[in-house]
């Protein structure tokens, strides 16, 4: 479904040149949930942004959905991007649009008729469980709800691929579990191939079939894993208190 071949990307930083991604080749199969993990600055986001050519590679080829994105004209590339959804750590919703209108944007870009658009937006909001929030503005929503809207928006055009850049890194563990659930449903029910970049091991372990570990712009290794349920840490005030006072007692001892 996604195939990178000898892809490199460098940035000019002050006087020096920084190799953010160096000669990376990677294949991601249809229907997979593929994790990318690594330290901050390892090149994870850059690798993800190369997959929809948000960053143009210095060299190498990017293929998604049997199309070589790196050789497409601007116009064709824009069309190809419509079947590649993307969500971000900070959601990137349009603050001056309602939830409904945010989800409608990709449909307007794809020239849906008004009726088809309304229907599809409702469907997508239903899918993420936010139909009753349709007429609110993003500022009125919690972080988890914002990410659900972003997912609904990314799914509106029925993409084959969903790229996720740290989708849960701005969320607390409870909300993270909810979003991971939604992503899993997107994968299982809609058959969408998902790439998820994260620096959180728990996240990657919980839903990925395969995980690529990155280090300074290169792939260290790609491993297959058996996804295990995301364990929500306790969130009860008594437990917090217990943890805090235990520490104190230990240090006093």
């Amino acid at each position, binding site marked *: 479904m996604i195939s990178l071949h000898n892809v490199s990307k460098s940035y000019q930083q002050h006087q020096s040149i920084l190799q953010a991604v160096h000669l990376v080749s990677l294949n991601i199969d249809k229907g997979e949930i593929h994790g990318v993990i690594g330290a901050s600055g390892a090149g994870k986001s850059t690798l993800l942004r190369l997959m929809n050519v*948000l960053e143009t590679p210095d060299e190498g080829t990017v293929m998604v959905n049997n199309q070589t994105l790196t050789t497409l004209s601007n116009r064709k*590339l824009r069309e190809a991007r419509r079947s*590649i959804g993307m969500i*971000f750590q900070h959601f990137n919703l*349009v*603050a*001056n*649009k309602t939830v409904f209108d945010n989800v409608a944007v990709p449909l*307007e870009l794809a020239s849906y008729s008004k009726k088809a658009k309304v229907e599809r937006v409702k469907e997508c909001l239903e899918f993420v469980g936010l139909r009753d929030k349709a007429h609110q503005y993003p500022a009125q929503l919690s972080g988890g709800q914002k990410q659900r809207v972003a997912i609904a928006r990314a799914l509106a055009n029925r993409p084959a691929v969903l790229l996720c850049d740290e989708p849960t890194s701005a969320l607390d563990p409870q909300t993270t579990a909810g979003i991971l659930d939604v992503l899993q449903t997107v994968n299982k029910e809609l058959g969408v191939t998902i790439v998820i970049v994260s620096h959180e091991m728990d996240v990657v372990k919980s839903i990925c079939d395969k995980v690529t570990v990155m280090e300074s712009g290169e792939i260290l290794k790609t491993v297959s894993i058996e996804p295990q349920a995301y364990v929500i840490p306790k969130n009860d005030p008594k437990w917090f208190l217990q943890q805090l006072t235990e520490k104190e007692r230990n240090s006093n001892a």
Partner: protein
Amino acid sequence: MPEIILKYQAEIWQSIGETFVMVGISIIAALLIGLPIGTLLYLCRKGQLLENRALYSSLNVFVNIVRSFPFLLLVVFLIPFTRFIVGTAIGTMAATIPLSIMAIAYYSRLVEQALLEVPRGIIESAVSMGASVPEIIFKFLFLEARSGLILGLTTSTISFISYSTVMGIVGGGGVGDFAIRYGYQRFETELMIYMIIIMIFLVQTIQFTGTTIAKKLDKR
């Protein structure tokens, strides 16, 4: 109604009309030309969608030069150009030309600043959805920056009113010119004060309207 106002009623109305023409045409110029120039300034910056150093520098220099001119000198400097466009360098219509040039430079800078406030992530998500540059401008940038664009236009309008008060030197007329010619030069101090009150009222109304609309449209 004070007697002095009744006495000069016709002239006062005429001067208000002249101010509205001068400021109105400046606003139209700001919107039709300043808004696109400001948008280009933003888009041609380093790291932005249409990054273009040559175009950015030219527009930037134009805006800076116009804005650094002492306004009266700009009016004088532009006389040949004004004569070429309007056919004469004297009168209210002639006065709209230097005012409009200033309006374009002034508002385009405020547009650039308003657009810079839009989070980069919004543009990024627009690109990832396959939006073209015009789509990004109209469906994302202007929408997200609309409060700033309106506040900028409010500030600009108030400056245009202030600039328009000196247009008497080319026979542009207007409230400010009337206050100076009748109130100051003919020692009708009371009349001058009334004209100042009219200006204050005008400015307050514009500021209030602009701030209210901007606040209402801001959902961030």
